[in-house]
């Protein structure tokens, strides 16, 4: 697919990164100073390794609607949305009101409350899966999903997609980002651990397959189908930019797995209630056996959820597999989730996301075409990303070959242009974002595209 891409000069990219980094530093004296104090009590000065940014960690101060202010008082249009959590926008009055009401009535009992049931009913309606349980994060939700797959089948092996991220539990901390030199062939990847401190044994309970590759799954099942408990994947990959499943892929997975007595789990931590009311399950029309949710469901409160069919959730419902946690279903997260699901993320919101998608993704695509940038835009509703690569991206390895430095520079242009974006992860816009705000991001991208191509 040759659109006559221009050659990008790496030396020019390097010079622009230095220039943009210097511009950014001038705006962040307080964040830069505060990082020193924070480093006295917090490892690296942050609560989470992803909060450390190159060249400078930016400390948040407050948010309102589509806007975010940092410690230095810089105002941003927020297309980061806390890694895709704040689809309701910041400080939504309905969320603040629900929190205000609940905190006066107690935030935690470790006993069931009515809101838990209401939230479960709302999720059952959206995802077409009848039975739910709650957790405190996406990591916990996917971890429990795997345990349920194993407990329900009495088998140990889990099939996982290369480049798909499922949180920080030991059982899944493999091959979400790999050095392709160490990860086996493109068709038959091997499990590579992503962090020190996870024993190899955990990786041996996984089988890694490329995304969008049914024959690879078929091979695993043909070889050792009687040992496979199930497969977990992000139905739309969102850890390596956004990569869409090809027509028939998800339905094909479900059929293949079921034929071998194994189950299919969707990790919808990123897609759930963001790209559609019923997430990728609704979007694809393929209902898996299990869905793991987190992020956007809680309106900014820590939350996780697992939904499943009666067949697969039986082990939990009948107590065979205790599924537990002190904070599971805590009343404050449930109160926030209830208002998010019943009053804010209503059907019209998703229509609006669909209408705004072409403004942002389409605007950036036009800029890419106009400038002849070797890049691809992939988007779904309020989520999207740019892969800096001329060829289409079907799986992790295609994305891994993209130009990181260009991506970093594009991100710096957004920051300096007053748009807060995740470095590397997909953008997210919320119910509060306007067309003009999305155009600001398009304008920043155009400035970046012009600078690197002239």
């Amino acid at each position: 697919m040759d659109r006559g891409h221009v050659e990008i000069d790496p030396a020019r990219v390097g010079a622009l990164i230095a220039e943009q980094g210097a511009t950014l530093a001038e705006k962040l004296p307080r964040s830069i100073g505060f990082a020193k104090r924070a480093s006295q009590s917090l490892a690296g000065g942050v609560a989470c390794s992803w909060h450390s940014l190159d060249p400078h960690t930016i400390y948040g101060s407050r948010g309102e609607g589509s806007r975010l202010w940092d410690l230095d008082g810089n105002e941003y249009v927020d297309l980061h949305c806390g890694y895709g959590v704040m689809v309701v926008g910041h400080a939504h009055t309905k969320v603040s009101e629900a929190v205000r009401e609940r905190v006066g009535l107690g935030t935690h009992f470790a006993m069931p409350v009515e809101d838990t049931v209401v939230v479960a009913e709302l999720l059952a309606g959206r995802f077409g899966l009848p039975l739910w349980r709650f957790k405190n994060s996406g990591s916990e939700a996917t971890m429990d999903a795997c345990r349920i797959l194993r407990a329900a089948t009495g088998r140990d092996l889990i099939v996982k997609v290369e480049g798909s991220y499922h949180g920080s539990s030991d059982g899944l901390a493999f091959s979400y980002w790999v050095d392709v030199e160490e990860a086996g062939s493109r068709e038959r990847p091997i499990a590579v651990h992503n962090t020190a401190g996870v024993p190899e044994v955990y990786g041996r309970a996984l089988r890694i397959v490329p995304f969008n590759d049914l024959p690879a799954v078929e091979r695993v099942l043909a070889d050792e189908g009687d040992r496979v408990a199930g497969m977990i994947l992000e139905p739309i990959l969102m850890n390596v930019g956004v990569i869409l499943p090809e027509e028939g892929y998800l339905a094909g997975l479900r059929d293949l797995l079921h034929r071998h007595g194994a189950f299919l789990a969707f990790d919808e931590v990123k897609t759930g209630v963001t790209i559609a009311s019923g997430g990728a399950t609704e979007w694809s029309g393929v209902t898996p056996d299990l869905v793991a949710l987190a992020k956007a469901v809680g309106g900014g409160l820590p939350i996780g959820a697992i939904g499943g069919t009666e067949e697969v959730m039986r082990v939990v419902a009948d107590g065979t597999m205790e599924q537990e946690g002190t904070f599971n279903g805590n009343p404050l997260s449930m109160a926030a989730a209830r208002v998010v699901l019943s009053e804010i993320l209503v059907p019209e919101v998703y229509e609006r996301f669909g209408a705004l998608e072409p403004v942002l993704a389409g605007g950036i695509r036009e800029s890419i075409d106009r400038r002849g940038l070797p890049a691809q835009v992939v988007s779904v509703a309020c989520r999207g990303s740019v892969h800096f690569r001329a060829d289409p991206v079907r799986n992790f390895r295609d994305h891994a070959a993209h130009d990181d430095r260009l991506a970093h520079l594009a991100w710096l242009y957004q920051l300096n242009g007053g748009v807060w974006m995740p470095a590397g992860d997909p953008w997210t816009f919320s119910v509060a974002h306007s067309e003009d705000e999305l155009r600001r991001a398009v304008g920043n991208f155009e400035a970046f595209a012009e600078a690197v191509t002239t």
Partner: protein
Amino acid sequence: MSVRETVELDLDRIDRLIEEEEGKLEPKHRASIGYKETAKRSVAGGVASSWQDSPPHAIYIDRGEGSRIWDIDGNEYLDFHLGYGAMVVGHAHPKIVQALERQARRGTHFAQPTKDLDAVGESLVDRFGLPLWRFCNSGTEATLEAARLMRATAGRDMLLKIEGTYHGHHDSLMFSVIPDPELIGPREHPVTLPQAPGIPQAFADLVRVVPFNDLVEVERALGELEGRLAGMIVEPAMMNCGVIMPDPGYLQGLKDLLHRHGALLAFDEVKTGATIAYGGAVEAFGVTPDIVCLAKAIGGGLPCGAIGATEELFRPVVEGEYDMAGTFNGNPMTMAASRAALTEVLTRDAYDHLNEIHRTLAEGCGAAIDKYRLPAYVKGLGAKGSVIYSATPVREYRDSVGIDERITYLAWLFQQNRGVFKSPWSKQETWTTSVQHSLEDARRYVENFEEFAAAIAE
């Protein structure tokens, strides 16, 4: 504990009393019992966590205030459950309410660090004497990170854990939590038993189990696993078998032994941290481990978790060679509540109050135990305590195996029917008190206990 004459408890009598008390309880919970049927249609088993449904039936809660909670039938209770020990600040504490209302108006989540972080971090440094901290969302996540950090630092895979302790829901430590006495094997070589189906045996093979309060067995394990053991995780005071205190010298002995073998020591202070003392077990027992895991009480009622460690251990994290990450880690709502809880509510003075309440509970229950010559004793510190139904001291999990759960279940029913919410699964769980509990609240617990003691001893 001095040797004293105790009565033999008549279990038939206890069965009859259970039947009687269950009969009294059922009519009070008609709404809860009915609501479970609705809940079961969308929530697996009708509850968000398996522990929320304990015999005789799940009880659905409406609200809480101070030391009290109300269920959906409108029953009012003094709350000594406190959400499995999380609500040491009491329910709906005005300072927490204020902090959360304010933060909700400023935004609930950014996935970027905010200014409350250093206040929380500094308080934890002050309390636990470890210099650096990171945050997560639950005790499960905190102990998961601790296990990984020990393995990464030592470059070894094997972990040592105590028989009968719970360290969260993840695959690396969910072994021999409440192991079946029929399957546990010899004391000098306990079998590592998965606590739930769905955990591969290969993961169990990386965990060695030892009894609590026994340095000789740790030494044996270290010898057998020479060069293979990354570290040990321990609840410094066991709180999953009632309360078991460490023998003098035990914790320091562990640290010395492990370090001598190039292995690390982690305290799981999810239950003891900021509850038994201002600086948890680190302060109470005077031993600072390499890693401390926290959750529950430090969040003031929001999902929370924290891990503290030495600079040496955190160096790869600081330098970015090793990610410790999660979208909600350091969430602004959790940090706001945590800041208020640690700096404004759970001050040093608060622990004087908690200890005074503990004295009332311990002396009151102790007096009833003596009066009725029950085979039982009280153990606890600060906000945590338990009556342990054994004539001889329980020093490790195996000592608790013989305690009949019917006794602890009946104790729970007695309190429940008399307006006190004790934590369910009472053989394992402790009572928890809050800064909003009064001495009068404690006396009410004691009165109910006396009535129970009289009933079972007669």
